[in-house]
C-alpha cells in the first residue's frame, strides 16, 4: 500500500435495508471485512488471528482474503501488540488489535491506559489514536479464574478510552464499524457466550453510533439496565415476567464510556424502580456508576424503591460448572430480583 485508499461508497446506509441471519461472531467478521475493503489503512493484529482464524474463530477467512500483511499474527506479546497498534494509529494507520481473552488486557494496561488513552490530551489535542482493541470477556465456558473475567469497569474509568459492549449480532456489527471509524482508542468487549447467538443483521455497511443507549424492550413497571450477555438474559426474564403482569423496560447502554445516561434516567423516572444487572463482580463494578448516575440526578426523586444491583459474586470465577453458574446472574435470578423489587416497592 503506497498510497492509502479510502472508498467512501461503502459508507452509504442504503445497503442496510436487507438483513441476513448470522451469529454475533459472523457479524463481527462481517464488520471487519467490510471495513477492511473500504479502507486500506485498517489492519488486524493479534495472536493466532491468521490461518488459525482466532481462538474463537472470529477472524476466520480474513487472512485468506486480506493476506498476512493486513491480518498479522503476532508472537505472544500483549504489551507489544497494544504498543504496535498505538504507534501505527499515531502515524496514519487504523489498527484493530485482538487480545485473545480480555483477562490478558491486564498485560496491556500501561500501553492502553498510560499511553493510548492519554496521548491526545497530553499532547495538547495534537495527535489522535484511532485504534480498536477487540477482546472477549465473560464466564460460562469453564475456563476458570484467569480466562473468565469481566473487567469492563477498569476501562470505563479511564478518560480518553471508549468502551463498547454489544449484546446482539446487529449491534456488534454496527458498533464495531463505528468503533473502527472513531478517531479514539476503543475497547470492544465481545462476550464469549454470545459468539454463537444468531439473529437478523442488516446487510452491508452501517454504523450504530457509539454512546447511544438503546431501549431493548419498552415497559412501564420496572427498569432493568443490562449490557452484554445480560441483555438477552434480561429480555428472556422480561418475557417471563410479562406473563405475571410485570412490564419490564430493558435498557442497554452499549457504550459504557462515554455513557449516554439519559435513556436510563428517563426510564427510571417512568417506572420508579430499577435493577442493574451485570456479570462483573459487584464491588467496584460499573453497576455502581449507573446507580450513582440515577441517584445523583433528579430521577432520584422518582424512585419508589432502593436501587437494586444484581451482579457477579465477590469471587474469582471458579472452574466447577455449578459454582461457575452460581457466580454470575442467570435469567432466573433476574426474574426473582425484579419480582421481589416490584412486590417490595412501596
Amino acid at each position, binding site marked *: 500500500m503506497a498510497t492509502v485508499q479510502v472508498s467512501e461508497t461503502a459508507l452509504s446506509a442504503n445497503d442496510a435495508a436487507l438483513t441476513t441471519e448470522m451469529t454475533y461472531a459472523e457479524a463481527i467478521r462481517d464488520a471487519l471485512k467490510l471495513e477492511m475493503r473500504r479502507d486500506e489503512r485498517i489492519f488486524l493484529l493479534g495472536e493466532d488471528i491468521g490461518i*488459525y482464524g482466532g481462538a474463537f474463530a472470529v477472524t476466520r477467512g480474513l487472512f485468506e482474503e486480506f493476506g498476512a500483511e493486513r491480518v498479522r499474527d503476532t*508472537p*505472544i506479546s500483549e*504489551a507489544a501488540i497494544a504498543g504496535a497498534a498505538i504507534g501505527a494509529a499515531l502515524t496514519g494507520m487504523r489498527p484493530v488489535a485482538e487480545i485473545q481473552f480480555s483477562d490478558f488486557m491486564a*498485560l496491556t494496561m500501561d500501553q492502553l491506559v498510560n499511553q493510548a488513552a492519554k496521548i491526545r490530551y497530553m499532547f495538547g489535542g495534537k495527535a489522535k489514536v484511532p485504534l480498536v482493541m477487540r477482546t472477549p470477556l465473560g464466564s460460562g465456558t*469453564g*475456563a476458570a479464574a484467569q480466562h473468565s473475567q469481566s473487567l469492563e469497569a477498569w476501562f470505563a474509568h479511564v478518560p480518553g478510552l471508549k468502551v463498547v459492549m454489544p449484546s446482539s449480532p446487529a449491534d456488534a456489527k454496527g458498533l464495531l464499524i463505528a468503533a473502527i471509524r472513531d478517531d479514539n482508542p476503543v475497547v470492544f468487549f465481545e462476550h464469549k457466550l454470545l459468539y454463537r447467538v444468531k439473529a437478523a443483521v442488516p446487510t452491508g455497511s452501517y454504523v450504530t453510533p457509539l454512546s447511544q443507549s438503546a431501549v431493548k424492550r419498552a415497559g412501564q413497571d420496572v427498569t432493568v439496565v443490562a449490557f452484554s450477555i445480560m441483555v438477552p438474559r434480561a429480555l428472556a426474564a422480561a418475557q417471563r415476567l410479562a406473563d405475571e403482569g410485570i412490564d419490564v423496560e430493558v435498557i442497554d447502554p452499549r457504550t459504557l464510556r462515554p455513557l449516554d445516561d439519559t435513556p436510563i434516567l428517563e426510564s427510571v423516572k417512568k417506572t420508579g424502580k430499577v435493577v442493574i444487572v451485570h456479570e462483573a463482580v459487584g464491588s467496584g463494578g460499573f453497576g455502581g456508576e449507573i446507580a450513582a448516575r440515577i441517584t445523583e440526578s433528579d430521577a432520584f426523586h422518582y424512585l419508589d424503591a432502593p436501587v437494586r444491583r444484581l451482579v457477579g459474586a*465477590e469471587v474469582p470465577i471458579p472452574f*466447577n*460448572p455449578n459454582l461457575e453458574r452460581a457466580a454470575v446472574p442467570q435469567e432466573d435470578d433476574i426474574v426473582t430480583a425484579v419480582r421481589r423489587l416490584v412486590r417490595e416497592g412501596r
Partner: protein
Amino acid sequence: MSYLGILDADLPDLLKTMYHIRAFEEKVDELFMQGAIHGTTHLSIGEEAVPTGALHALRSDDYITSTHRGHGHCIAKGADLNLMMAELLGRESGYCRGRGGSMHIADVDAGNIGANGIVGGGIPIAVGVGLSIHMQQQARVCLCFFGDGAANEGTFHEAINLCSIWRLPVIFLCENNQYGMSMSAKLSMHVASVADRAIAYGIPGESVDGNDVFAVHHAVWQAAERARAGQGPTLIEARTYRYKGHSKSDQNRYRTRAEIDDWRARDPIVIFTEVVRARGVLAPGADTQVRANAYADIEAAYAFALASPEPQVADLLEGVYA
C-alpha cells in the same frame, strides 16, 4: 549401574512416569470428547520426556512453576493422580477443590507452585521462589517450565534478568514444542534457539533434545548443581512436539501431517523404552506391564474422581481470603 547419569534401577520408574503422563492425557482427551470435562485443556502427549527427565534431576523438596500445559509437570513432580483427575472433573476432592481445573492445578506445600493460565505468568513467580530459597538459605532450586511462545512475553525478560543479577537458584526450562498455539517458533522469534537468549543475561544456555529423557535430565541436573552452588540461573531449551492440537478448539490448520508424522517417528516413550530394553533392567515384556499398570492407575483415578462429590454451591464464596 547407570547410563548417561541415570541409575538403571530408576529406569522402570521413569518409564512409569512417562506412561502415567500419556495415559492421563489420553483419558482427559477422551473425557473432553465425551463432554464429560468442562472447559478446555492442553495436552502434552509427545512431550513426556521433558518433565520426566527434568524432575528426575531434582530433589523432592525442590519447587516447580508450571504452565497451562502442566499435567505432565504435575505428574512427574509426584502428584496424586486421583486428586489430579478429581480436579479435572471439578470435584471437591481435587487438588483445588474443583475451583481451579486443568489450568490451575497446584500443590504448593509439595513444591508445585501451580499451573498457570497466563502464558509467561509463572516466570516472575519463579523468581520469587528462587529469592525465597536464597533468603532462607535453603539448598532447594526452583524449576520454571514455560513454552516457546512464552519466551516472547515481557515477563520472560524481566524475570530472567532479575534472577541473573541476584544469582538465584532458578532453572528456566523452555519446552519448545515448535508452536505457540498456531504460531511457529521459527516465525515468532528470529533466533535458532530460545537458549540463545541466555547471552542477553550472561547466564548459561543450552538446547537439548526434549524427546530424550537422558539429555533433559543431564542438562537440568547440571543447572541444579550450579544453582545449589550459588552460581545462579540457567536457561535450557528442550526441543519437543505436541501431537494433539493446542487445545480443544484446534483444527490443526497451521501444520502438516508430514511434520507430525516425523515427530511421531521419534516418540519419546519409544526411544526411552529401547534404552530400558537395552539395559536389561526389566524382564522381557515387563515394559508392557508397566504400561498396562499405568493405564490402570489412570482408570482408578477416574473412578476415584467420579465417586467424589462436587463442591457445594453454598461454599461459593469460601476461600477467597486467608
